[in-house]
């Protein structure tokens, strides 16, 4: 299956350690922020940090930044489908107060 024309890029151990540390720090920040009352922004901050961590894992540990266009397309496709799930679900949750629920 392996294509002889493709080269495999693997980052140095130092890079992986730095990313690991960044992920651990981000986890610590998430925990710390959870103890501060930011109102509605608590969720926004927590999800923002989680997205950042997800990007680090995908780009470095999953080697997406060295991948070919097709692999990147697969990643974008996955994110697009997640967006479909969230967006169309929100057409319900975000609008129940506006147009109401049938039968009520």
């Amino acid at each position, binding site marked *: 299956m392996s294509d002889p024309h493709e080269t495999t890029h693997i980052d140095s151990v130092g890079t992986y350690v730095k990313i690991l540390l960044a992920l651990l720090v981000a986890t610590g920040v998430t925990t710390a922020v959870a103890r501060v009352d930011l109102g509605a922004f608590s969720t926004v901050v927590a999800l923002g940090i989680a997205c950042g961590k997800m990007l680090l894992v995908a780009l470095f540990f999953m080697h997406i930044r060295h991948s070919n266009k097709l692999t990147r397309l697969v990643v974008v496709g996955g994110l697009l489908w997640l967006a479909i*799930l969230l967006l169309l679900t929100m057409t319900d949750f975000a609008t129940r107060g506006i147009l109401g629920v049938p039968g009520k």
Partner: protein
Amino acid sequence: MITAAAQEREHYLNASYGLKSWLLTKDHKRIGLLYLATITLFFFIGGAFATLIRVELLTPQGDLVSSETYNKLFTMHGVMMIFFFLIPSIPAVLGNFFLPLMIGARDLAFPKLNLLSWYLLVIGGAFSLYAMLAGGVDTGWTFYTPYSTTYSNGYVIATALGIFIAGFSSILTGLNFIVTIHRMRAPGMTWFRMPLFVWAHYATSLIQVLGTPVLAVTIVLLFLERVFHLGIFDPARGGDPVLFQHLFWFYSHPAVYIMVLPSMGVVSEIISTFSRKAIFGYRIVAFSSVAIAVLGFLVWGHHMFVSGQSLYAGMVFSFLSYFVAIPSAIKVFNWTATLYKGSISFQTPMLYALGFIGLFTIGGLTGLFVAALGIDIHVTDTYFVVAHFHYIMVGGALMGYLGGMHFWWPKITGRMYPEGWAKLSALVIFLGFNLTFFPQFILGYLGMPRRYHAYPEEFQVLNVLSTAGASVLAVGYMIPMIYFIWSLRYGKVAPANPWGATGLEWKTSSPPPVHNFEETPIVTHGAYDYSTVIPQEVEVG
């Protein structure tokens, strides 16, 4: 009569013997047959539950089983048929066997992963079977919260775990197909020379890979809620039960296309072969498969019009649902246009394909009824919906599966089935199916709700018709089972290309050699070029 040459030639069936050679095989063809045996077992278990349901509904009184048992029967019928038969049916059996052959490959991209997929289905099935034998589950195949998380006393977790495991089988099969289609096509097999069966499986695989993980996540959330009372779906803890339905249907609506898209691929092959014409509008039919896969992800909320979802969301989902009808209709019109001025022969696979077109059209058009907000509120949770989805999933998916089994049986086994019996059974299945499910449209429209073991007396005549139809249908399913097994020993020896079909799978011997082709084929023309193909005669024994 088996010729000496056919006896001596080595092929995938006689290359090695013994249980181990099957249970550890990495040959996609043998794995396809392992799937065939497994899902046939699941089909008959699911069928047994359906039989009990229909016998109970012969009379208006709930006199055969209690309402609790009835709840378990329809749940286990749905779970078995959907997750363990229909979803794996064509992709795992015919897709596994023929996808590599049709693109000129020696195997799938990941043969070991392919075998793992089969084991996962078996393990998942074993969990669900255990749950059924231990006491069953009564939530319906949809596992709606809060009943499944809070109130049901059934084996919810064991059943859901079985589905969770089987889901990974589906994901891995989809992944394997996508990589195989991208990377393992024979020289000259460009994207637009691929058979439409392969296009349909590509689209199906996209759904399996993109949708099934969401079902897995949903099952994990269900588990956390039921066991640890996490509060994701429980309003008392800040959750929302309708969220479960969003997550569930995000997978389970596209899952309908996992069942029916491969069937459409089979129908394209059969219609072309038995009309001896290239499929009308090949490219648009190919793209319509992908369009169905994509649009199928945008419509799930039409299952939830009366769930408490907002009216705005209902209107959005209703509007989007109509778009799926476009690529579906394109396929039906293009198959019909292919028949026009074709050299049509009505052999068994063609009977199933034509049956598919008629039944799928009825299922699809009634789908438009239930996609309309106003009508759906009238028929929600009635037998109208039951009839509608059986026309799609049995009239569509299962007819395609049986058509495909007959079409490729000579290639799989090297034997012909008895044509007369096969035509008879196709007819019996078509009539039995319509007698079973057409009365249910009327019952539903008149207001008979689904999922009750008792009903008002005025509905009895239509229910008796439906049960009578189910009996005919059961006979129809048994006949192929018998003659397929019979043909393994007594069937006429099949030539390499008994139908005069154009696909690469017909250019190799029947049954195919272990590595599919004696030499790697080089493809020089499109998928349906009949100018160079002549049907081979079946040897008379």
